[in-house]
């Protein structure tokens, strides 16, 4: 095996040429392997049928003031809360500059009495409590996430605990006074 002498050995000119060929072909190999990897990585992203998601229509007529309902959208709960005048004024009295994720209540709703948010804690994805009358609502009267103790206010904004962001407001539109379409 080892007795085939390498004639190019020692010839500096040949070595740089070989080095270049080695680096060039390695680079092509690495890029090629990376490209070949991509279909596999991308296959793990949401498939076409998962992406083709319907929107959800919600009938608001049975939801009395002070009540809330939870509807399913894209496999996640969406909170629809019929806020009381007190809850609205509490949400609007806050000094926005002092918030972790500063946002005015006015910018988070289309109609002040209806708050629509994705009911997923922005910390690690639990569903906060506060939809049912008997639920704890945290220190700010909105929602309380039992997983690691995040408190949200009556505008769904993060006020205390580890979550970084306010409850997300999904895209939605009022089809008429009593029907809202989410998504």
């Amino acid at each position, binding site marked *: 095996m080892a007795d085939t002498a390498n004639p190019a050995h020692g010839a500096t000119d040949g070595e740089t040429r070989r080095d270049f060929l080695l680096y060039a072909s390695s680079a092509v190999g690495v890029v090629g392997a990376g490209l070949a990897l991509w279909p596999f990585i991308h296959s793990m*992203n949401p498939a076409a049928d998962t992406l083709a998601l319907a929107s959800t229509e919600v009938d608001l007529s049975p939801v009395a003031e002070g009540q809330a309902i939870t509807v399913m959208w894209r496999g996640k709960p969406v909170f629809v809360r019929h806020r009381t005048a007190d809850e609205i004024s509490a949400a609007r009295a806050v000094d926005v500059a002092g918030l972790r994720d500063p946002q005015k209540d006015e910018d988070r709703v289309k109609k002040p009495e209806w708050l629509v948010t994705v009911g997923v804690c922005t910390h*690690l994805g*639990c569903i906060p409590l506060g939809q049912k009358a008997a639920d704890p609502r945290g220190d700010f009267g909105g929602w309380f996430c039992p*997983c690691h103790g995040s408190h949200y206010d009556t505008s769904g904004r993060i006020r205390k605990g580890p979550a970084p962001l306010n409850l997300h407001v999904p895209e939605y539109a009022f089809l008429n006074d009593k029907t809202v379409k989410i998504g």
Partner: protein
Amino acid sequence: MSSVSNNKIIKWVDDRLPIISMMQHSAVEYPTPKNLSYWWNFGSLAGLVLVIMILSGLFLAMNYAANTGLAFLSVERIMRDVNYGWLIRYIHANGASMFFIVVYLHIVRGFYYGSYKPPREILWWLGLIIMLVMMGTAFMGYVLPWGQMSFWGATVITNLFSAIPLVGEHIVTWLWGGFSVDNPTLNRFFALHFLLPFVLVGIVVLHVWALHTVKSNNPLGIDMKGPQDSLPFHPYYTVKDLFGVGVFMMFFMAFVFWAPNFLGHPDNYIPANPMVTPAHIVPEWYFLPFYAILRAVPDKLGGVLLMFGAIVILAAMPWLDTSKVRSCTFRPIYKWFVMLFIADCVLLGYIGGKPAEEPYILIGQFATAWYFIHLLIVTPLVGWLEKPRPLPESISAAVTKKEAV
């Protein structure tokens, strides 16, 4: 090498594939320190549990259906209708806990006797990688029965990656294959849960290879200097390891037969419901210390970084520990700090299982701080300042003189 046996057939095979002399070399003659204590039994036990997990898992997989509509029911069917299905599942579910008990004790052993120090750094790192892969495997396995804890555990853990700036959300969507933990997630977790144990086997082979290159540490922490310090692995340690297997199996089977759900969580017998988070979600016990560290920080990214940091930092032990002496037997001060550190980890485990309210949050923050203070400050400082007790001149000298061990 070739003097492996007088048997012609064995010799014929061995001359072509030296598998027999390799076994002879690494499991029979392999020189092992003669003073190993029972703390050295946990390595072989970890290997045993890995085999048990692969076998029990294989038979579970024959009856399991990785589909959100079927998974929970297929596990119930394993429990009620499949012959001895309950036994196989209880072996597998409790086996995961046994795996962590054994591996954590194995790590504590290395910690106390300085087994991470030169020349065993790579051996130590391979061990940490094994621990990480085990954690991933166990996490994904726990998702498979698709109960409430499965679902919400998966949700919380995958969401950890959303803390990564900019790409976090994309990574989480990619992990899920959708917009929440759902059927694509369950499918890929099953595929990976099946694969990773075999990856573990590969890393274990490297781990043992590294071990056989640098040889075992021992309670005195001093090197073997000659044949008088060692015993052949077989029969001395094969028998001792087998004795350990007997004791361990009694412990393991006591759980399987008498308290099969003691280490689990009752909420996982409620089918997954993406609309309701259980009031008190906790991971499996073996993740609790890390979970406590995650919750100690009131900042999402900070908590996640600290939690992963708690494991990664262990890889730096060979440099963090500045002492020239390996074994805590001869380290009058550091010894107590190591015990305190282990107590701190147990405390973190306790806190991780408690709800996120006072006084647990505050205790958790102190315990987390101590975890890092111990590793980053106490360990290097004590290594410099402490005056170790004199080391015995050799293992055999210490053993024959019955010196304090």
